[in-house]
Structure formats: structure tokens, C-alpha cells
């Protein structure tokens, strides 16, 4: 039953391949729904990245929109102001995200529990206000447009299909990172910190170092997601790029799907965005109402997330006796 058993590790890897293959087929099946598909894959990637810090290390950030906005702004400004193309701007933006995480974490990881969450809202707000008021650099409340990008390796960056597959690449990176963490020492250390930070220190875990490492990974992936988001929107302003709503949405996806699991955040993105999309035409403005109902039902009947609930059901199924069970 232990997740380090190589058999389970391989099964999870096969699962990742399956998920990615299914998403790769999406544009052929739902060619007309590429905007929805992009949001789904991007949010799955962002929620998985959030979960590296939130689910595994138990540090609930409500400020991850800071990385998304930072990615959008940095990659766009590098192109419009310095002529640095997207292919170079993206890794540079990721570096800036990591730098932000290092400073942010070094200051706020000394706070515990809710205090870290509250301070994370503040960081994102500071960046939003900065983007809003530093008009000479950011364009202020009028926002920025990302126009005239040259093709990347011959691919037109304004083609929705290309954007979709870039987001899928990011999801692949996020899932593989999460899988790698789940089966390694780092994952155990992060979970130990989440469960009982003081007790973990007695066993040789350096909490600040581990939390910073998780934050940097999470930041790099989230900032890359921000770059893609900016590309997808092509025009954005501070209010949208640094919105608290986006941070909260990522948290909800991870909670609904299952925090501290490889597939949970992706499942959560699928359920939340899927239900929103499915009821959009029938309920129009009231689709957010459906969103709320889904969350209430899940928190009531699957408090550990849908993934945990599914596992329990599978174990109880009539054919479950044929599955390898705990000794």
C-alpha cells in the first residue's frame, strides 16, 4: 500500500500519461470549445502547482495570483519594452517568479497557519497596486496588450491550438513535478511539516528550507502559467491579472479534487470548470450559483476531496477483492 512501492509509482506515471493523452485529444473532439479547453488545462496546471505548497507542505497561499500576474506582465513587458521574444521571456519570467517566492517566503514562512495565508493576500495586493500605479512601466489601469509576437519555433503564438498545447506542456510539467515529489524524500518531509512542524524538526527536517524549495517550484510553474495566460488574453489589466478570485479558485480546485495528491487538483479543475461550463447556457449568470452548490456538496460528502472518495468507493466495490489490498 505504501506509495513508494515502485508498482504504485509506475501506476501513477501511467495515470499521468493517460490524463495527458486524453487532454491531447480534446481539440479534435471539441474543436469549437478551445477557449474552455485552454482554461481547463491552464487551471489544472496552476492548481497542481499551487498544491505543491498548499497541499503537500500545508501552506495555504491565497496569493498565487501574484505569480500569474507577474508572469503575464513580465513576459509582455520584456517583449513590448525590450524586444525579448516569448520563448526567452518565459524562462526569465519564471526566474522572476522564483525570486519573488524566495523573498516572500523568507519573510512570511516564519508565520504559521492562517497568518501565512493572510500575508499572501497582502503580497498579491501589493503587486496589483504596483501594476496599477507604476504607469510609466506597466501602463497602469489601462493595462497591456501583447501584440505582434513572432512565431515560436515556427508556431503561431496567437493560434488557440498552439496556446492549448503550450498549456498542456505546462500541465505535464506540473503533474510530473508533483509525482516526483510524491514518491521522494521531499514529499515526505513536506507532509511531515504539514502534519506537525515541531515534530518534523526532531527528525532532521529543516522546515524553512523545505517550504522555500516547494514555494520556488510552485512559483516557477505558476509564473509560466501566467505567461501563457497573458498570451491567451492578449490584453489584460491589473484588476484581472492580480485578482483574488483567481487565487481562491485555485485553492477550491485543489480542495475539491484532493489536496496533497498528484491528480486531485486536475480533477478539481475538471469538476468545477466543467460544471460551470455545462450550466452556463441553461443558467447563464446563475452558473456561479451551481459552482457554489457543487462546492457545498463536495465539502459535505467528500471532505478529503473527490479523489479520496473515489478510492474509498473502489475499495468497497464488489470486485475490489481482486485488487491488491493492505496486508
Amino acid at each position, binding site marked *: *500500500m*505504501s506509495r*513508494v*512501492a*515502485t508498482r504504485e509509482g509506475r501506476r501513477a506515471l501511467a495515470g499521468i500519461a493517460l490524463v495527458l493523452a486524453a487532454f491531447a485529444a480534446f481539440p479534435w473532439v471539441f474543436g469549437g470549445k478551445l477557449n474552455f479547453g485552454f482554461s481547463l488545462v491552464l487551471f489544472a496546471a496552476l492548481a497542481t502547482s499551487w498544491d505543491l505548497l498548499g497541499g503537500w507542505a500545508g501552506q495555504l497561499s491565497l496569493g498565487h495570483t501574484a505569480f500569474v500576474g507577474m508572469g503575464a506582465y513580465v513576459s509582455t513587458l520584456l517583449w513590448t519594452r525590450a524586444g525579448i521574444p516569448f520563448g526567452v521571456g518565459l524562462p526569465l519570467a519564471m526566474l522572476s517568479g522564483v525570486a519573488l517566492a524566495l523573498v516572500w517566503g523568507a519573510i512570511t514562512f516564519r508565520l504559521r497557519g492562517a497568518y501565512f495565508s493572510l500575508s499572501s493576500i497582502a503580497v498579491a495586493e501589493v503587486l496589483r497596486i504596483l501594476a496599477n500605479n507604476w504607469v510609466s512601466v506597466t501602463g497602469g489601469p489601462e493595462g497591456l496588450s501583447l501584440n505582434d509576437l513572432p512565431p515560436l519555433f515556427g508556431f503561431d503564438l496567437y493560434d488557440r491550438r498552439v496556446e492549448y498545447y503550450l498549456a498542456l506542456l505546462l500541465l505535464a510539467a506540473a503533474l510530473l513535478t508533483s509525482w516526483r515529489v510524491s*514518491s*521522494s*524524500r521531499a514529499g*515526505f*518531509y513536506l*507532509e*511531515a511539516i504539514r*502534519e*506537525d512542524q*515541531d*515534530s*518534523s*524538526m*526532531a*527528525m*532532521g*527536517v*529543516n*522546515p524553512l528550507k523545505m517550504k522555500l524549495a516547494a514555494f520556488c517550484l510552485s512559483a516557477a510553474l505558476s509564473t509560466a502559467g501566467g505567461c501563457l495566460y497573458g498570451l491567451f488574453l492578449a490584453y489584460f489589466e491589473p484588476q484581472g491579472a492580480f485578482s483574488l478570485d483567481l487565487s481562491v479558485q485555485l485553492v477550491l480546485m485543489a480542495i475539491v479534487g484532493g489536496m496533497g495528491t498528484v491528480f486531485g487538483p486536475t480533477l478539481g479543475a475538471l469538476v468545477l470548470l466543467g460544471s460551470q461550463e455545462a450550466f452556463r447556457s441553461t443558467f447563464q449568470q446563475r452558473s456561479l450559483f451551481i459552482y457554489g452548490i457543487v462546492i457545498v456538496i463536495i465539502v459535505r460528502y467528500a471532505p478529503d476531496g473527490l479523489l479520496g472518495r473515489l478510492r474509498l468507493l473502489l475499495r468497497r466495490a464488489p470486485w475490489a477483492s481482486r485488487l491488491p489490498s*493492505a*496486508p
Partner: protein
Amino acid sequence: MGIALAVRSLSKDFGGVHAVDGVDFDAEEGSVLGLIGPNGAGKTTLFNLVSGYLSPTRGRIALFGKEVTGLRPFALARLGVSRTFQVVRPFPRLSVLENVMVGAFLHHKAAAEAERHALAVLTRLGLARQADMPASALTLAARKKLEIAKALAVQPRLLLLDEVVAGLNPSEMTATIELIRGIRQSGVTIVIVEHILKVILGLCDRVVVLDHGRKIAEGTAPEVAANPEVISAYLGSDDDA
């Protein structure tokens, strides 16, 4: 035999309270040192100082001849110090095996290696059958064992045990005393805080008695038990009445 742990004029003030006040003692390598005293004597504060959870106001701590004053708990763990907590602290949502693996990772970087080592520790403590249970589902006795298993998994040279026997029934108590003897025989130096006289008499080579943060006596268990100052610290002297 060298000195595993040397504590010199160690003091910790909390505001105006001298929780630990100028304490000196040595723990010889491979021995069991008992730490006793009435409630509030400063035993837990002393443990927190030696394991790096508190830094001392004054005084020094040396580990196998090396100065370690002020080092954090994880740094001390790497140097071979390991501890249990009086109020047991399992990682509740991890399985018993995963709890122990966290410690095993200190000296076994690969997951499969750490798992093998953790299973060996669980087998030694008679917890192997519960390996896949969530730690939160264990009985108190099993959780106390898990606490020891977690501390052993880091392969300590100095093990600090904080009331691991208290709260157990007589047969579990005997088993745990046997277990601690076994750990000592494998060469680990042990410092133990305990209230139960049977444990102290049965296990400890030397005993240090604390009262109001000060060391009031030191010696073999029978010597200390006969010391009038120790008796008055526990029972109160005629002067107090």
C-alpha cells in the same frame, strides 16, 4: 568510555522565571541517565534546551566533545540527537510506516531504502502489523511506541525519552522497559525523564534530580532515593509546614 552529553551551567529564563538554573551534568556514552523532579522542576525545559527547541540564556551544551549550544533541532538530529515528546506527536494523516520513514530518510535518501529501514524499526518495536494504518487510528500504547520508533528511525547516538512509560498498563510497561534496555545495549546513550520509580530504579545508571530549575542531587538511583533533600523536594520538609 567518553562523555556523550555534557551540560555546563545551563540556564533558561522566561521573563523573571528561572526555569533551568545553572545545571551541570554528564551523560556517559552508552549509559542511561535519569532526570527526575517534581512537576515544574524544569525537566521539559531542559529537554527542549538539549534537543535545540529552546536556546539557553546562559551555559553550554557539548555532544561527544563537540560544542553544540544554540544549534536547531534538525541540525542536532544530523549530529545524532533524537527525542520523543511527552505529549505524543505522530503525523496523524500519514500511515505508521510513513511516520517512521520520515526519520529513516535522514540516513537513507532513496525511498525504497528508507522504507526498508523503517519496516525494520517497526518490526523491532512490534508495530509491523499496524504499518499501513493511519497513525491517528492507533491506541495510546501503540502511539507511544510509534513515538519511540520515529526517534529510533533517525539512528540516534543520544536518545532523549520524555515520559514514554507513563500511561501504559503494567505489561506494556515491562515491555517498554525491556525495549529501552535493548536500545541501550545497541550502544545508544539515553537520557530519560520519568516519574515512575520502578522505571528509574530498573533502568538508570545515574540519576539527576531537579527542583525549581536547580540540580539538587545526583547519583545512583538508590543513593538519590535516600537523599533527604530529594525526599523533601517531593514530599515537602517539616519547615514548609
